[in-house]
């Protein structure tokens, strides 16, 4: 991998290209070239990094042509999203909107209409950046990632995937083929809220995903998960804030307190004061919204 001070030219460097037609083929190419190869799916992150000369992989493995990888399946185990499912297909999928609304909302927020037609959620996850909107919903939904290589496959929980900014547990020879999302339990409500950096269509300044579960009486928080992006080197769960809420009556005071604790769990590098302030605001609002999302359907039907 080569970095260059000529990033201002914004030109693609030369590379070798293969378009495998199966996952096995793709994996064997990865095995062969290892760190000199990169998987090209949507291209909206990879090709930009290459044009900026942040990376110059010698081999690009284009997987767009592999059939049967763009699925969005829902069954009794939950949601399964294939590596090539685009952000747009996920955002507009009826089952995702209906049952995993916070994921649909996040996918809909990312980029622009053109980007969403090209970029994949899997790519979003593998980018492993601090500001990827797709990740907080996956964190709170406790998604699992299927990683495939020539050696076989492994499934890891998403909270073990992120090692640091743009660093993940994905090995050089592995391909993320599927994102598995268990169906949230009954009496759950969720949402995704965000603030952008400057304009409406812009990178996320603070992203908050919440999944909250009430007791049968609808008064106590039986469980809560809060996922944040853009406020730390990697997307995080605000576990202290979650602890504060678990098992307690959901009241305005407590929600505000939890939001404050969540803001304290952040470690933003830039615009730190404002990010903390916005984290506090958004976590508070997200908790209320997620809670309301349950209350509207007391019949126990899971709706997010």
């Amino acid at each position, binding site marked *: 991998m080569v970095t260059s001070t*000529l990033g201002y030219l914004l030109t693609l460097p030369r590379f070798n290209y293969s378009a495998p037609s199966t996952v096995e083929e793709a994996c064997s190419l990865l095995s062969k070239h290892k760190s000199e190869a990169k998987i090209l799916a949507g291209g909206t992150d990879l090709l930009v990094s290459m044009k900026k000369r942040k990376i110059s992989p010698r081999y690009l493995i284009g997987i767009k042509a592999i059939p049967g990888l763009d699925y969005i399946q829902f069954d009794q185990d939950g949601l399964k999203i294939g590596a090539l499912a685009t952000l747009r297909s996920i955002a507009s999928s009826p089952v995702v909107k209906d049952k995993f609304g916070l994921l649909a909302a996040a996918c809909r927020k990312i980029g622009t209409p053109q980007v969403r037609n090209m970029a994949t959620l899997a790519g979003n996850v593998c980018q492993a950046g601090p500001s990827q909107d797709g990740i907080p919903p996956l964190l709170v939904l406790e998604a699992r990632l299927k990683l495939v290589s020539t050696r076989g496959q492994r499934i890891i929980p998403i909270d073990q995937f992120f090692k640091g900014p743009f660093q993940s547990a994905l090995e050089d020879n592995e391909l993320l083929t599927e994102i598995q999302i268990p169906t949230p339990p009954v009496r759950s409500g969720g949402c995704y809220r965000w603030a952008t950096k400057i304009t409406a269509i812009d990178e996320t300044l603070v992203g908050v995903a919440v999944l909250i579960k009430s007791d049968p009486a609808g008064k106590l928080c039986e469980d809560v998960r809060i996922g944040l992006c853009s406020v730390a080197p990697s997307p995080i769960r605000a576990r202290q804030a979650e602890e504060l809420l678990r098992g307690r009556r959901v009241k305005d005071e407590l929600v505000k307190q939890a939001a404050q604790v969540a803001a304290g769990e952040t470690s933003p590098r830039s615009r730190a004061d404002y990010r903390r302030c916005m984290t506090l605001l958004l976590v508070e609002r997200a908790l209320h919204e997620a809670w309301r999302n349950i209350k509207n359907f007391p019949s126990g039907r899971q709706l997010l």
Partner: protein
Amino acid sequence: MKEYAVVGKPLARVDGKVKVTGEALFAGDIRLPNMLHGKILRSPYPHAKIIRIDTRKAEALPGVKAVITGRDVGPVRFGFVDTPRYPADMYPLAIDKVRYIGEEVVAVAAVDEITAAEALELIEVEYEPLPAVFDPEEALKDGAPQVHDEEIVPTTTCAWQDWGVARAARPYKAVNNICATTSMSYGDIEKGFSESDYIREDKFVVPATSHAAMEPHVALASYDSSSGKLDVWLGHMSLAVKQYWLAKTLGIPLSKVRVHRVFTGGAFGGKIPLFPYEFLAAFLSKKTGRPVRIVLSREEVFTSCRLSHRMIIDVKTGVKSDGRIVAQHVKLINDPGAYRGSSPVVMFLAHAFRNPIYNIPNWKHEGIGVYTNKAVCNPKRGHGSPQMSFAVESQLDLIAEHLGIDPAELRLRNVRKTGDVLPNGDKLDSCGLSIGIRRAIEATGWKEKRGGGNNRGIGMGLAAMFSGAAYYPFASAAIARLNPDGTATLFTGQSEFGQGSDTAMSQIAAEELGLTLDDIILVSADSELCPIDIGGFLSGGVFVSGEAVRRAAADAKRQLLNIASEILETEVDELEINNGHVIVKAKPERGASFGELVKYNIQKHNGDSIIGKGFCKPVPEIEFYPSLSKGTGRFTAAYGFTMAVAEVEVDPETGKVKVHRITIADDCGQPINPLNVHGQLLSQAVMGVGDALLEEVVTEEGRIVNPSFEDYKIPGVHEVPEFIHISTETVEPKGPFGGKEVGECARAAVIAAIANAVTNAIGTRIYSLPITPEKVLKAIGKTGGSGFS
């Protein structure tokens, strides 16, 4: 307002069809046989000596046809300003030193872009970094690193001399990094302050912003050694400026430089002077004997293609208790970056554009331009007016608040009126200030809304703009050629960069000749085919070039009527034009078509095919230019005015400002095309939102950290407010059919209006741009973060 047949009608623009089909050609769309691709190696240091450049490996790369450094080009200087007092200070390629990150150091021409890029990677440059200075106030101090430590010695005549001013260029030695100074005054400010009932002094800071036109900068040059001719295709705002500077820097006769017609994809002031990449494309073409195209990346556009001027503005104003301004003292520090850019001009204009607005009996305006090791600044839509208007209009509201006078009322008590003569001798033959303010107040429900509440606010800003000024080539000319089929071909040097000049010029010609828009065939923006023109960056497109067009059409019409009078055996004053025919008023069935008249004239008058000629100077009474440093002398013959009102809502929890509505009452005289006028004003309303709330070129240690649309955010469709346009229905007697400028006045007024509206909403003022959520929260006491970025 008078009703015309073609002028004043919202006709579809003449270049609309080619633009919606993708047929419209921009400079980057032109392909020439055997074309090479050029790329530029840029300085990674804000300030460094160039010790050694080794280009051998790059030259040896297959496909590379030329590699040039500053030594190959030589000490050729150019710049936006090149006067006896301020000789040009830029080189196309740095020679001994680099002075900002992004400065051009080496250029390469190769068979394709990737080879040129790879060649750059093979070039070795050894630098010796020098201490750099980034803050203008630091740069002024003794002992600060000197950006230009050597004397700038002109090696040729300066542009002013070439243009006829009988004063030789002098060497310039920057002391304490000063690149330019202005000092203008009128009346007696000490006396004025002593007579004031209330005086206040405030400081305002405006950062650099980017033009961010959608088309990146590009130049295609083709030099033919056998004819000695240079053909270029460039994005630009004036043929004459590009032609002159290419001729001068390359040593080619002016008439052998042809700037071809292309559409420019937006300019806003960012494509006026000669740029290094344009010179380099031509130089490389001369060297290789092949056409060379250099396309800049978006990042290069952000870092190396000029920004709008950074300013620190200190305003001290004295008023009577009824709000009348009696004295104003402005001290301005301009930070144009590592080269002078347009510094003396912007400092002059920061005053000159405010002069026509308020009748201030005593004023002093001092400006100092300071070199720093940062990217260079040039004009941007309003050139000094946005910065100064933000400062002065903000302070006016502060004064109004203190005196307990409504800010609109305060302005009404101070604005100039039609007939006023400015201290420099410019006369306001048309001035829609008062009527504009009144109409804007009425349309927006100003009085009721000023009370604020609900986190909402309403604010006003005023601005003024010239309609052309004396700058090379000092006049516009046009040719109207009548054709045997009854149409007319119009030749004008005005160039179309989105502002609608192709359409406006055609409408003016059609109106004068009594033809329809479809009957006008336009030949524009080609330096070989078209007469001289002041271009589109002096805001004189309608007032000067349009008037030249009208005169050309009138000349053709006069000849037409003369020949008609001959054929029809009637006096000229008994004839009139109707529907492409000249008819006898008393007997309309008697007449002749334009085509018949042209053919008759050719036969009867020895081949005279009826060609009309017209020309116009921005200020007929003067030669050359006013004094930039003293502010004396006639400047322009007509001013446009904008009265903007902004209505905003501030979210007290996030600090975000939403602009609900911008109302603009604009005085552009008679609109030549109301669709165009509306488009220019709406454009500036949205651009103003960007300046007021979103945009800032952020520099850290001389490095621009947001050189992309990812990080530098311009307004998108979701940032657009509701927009209302009100006409003041003024007519400028000297303009063609009463028209004057419209393209760059409103931006300043909108910025000021938004700043005042935010203050009305939150009850406290922010003294710098952009007004970010953090600044708002800090102002209302909510969170940390600095008020000045």
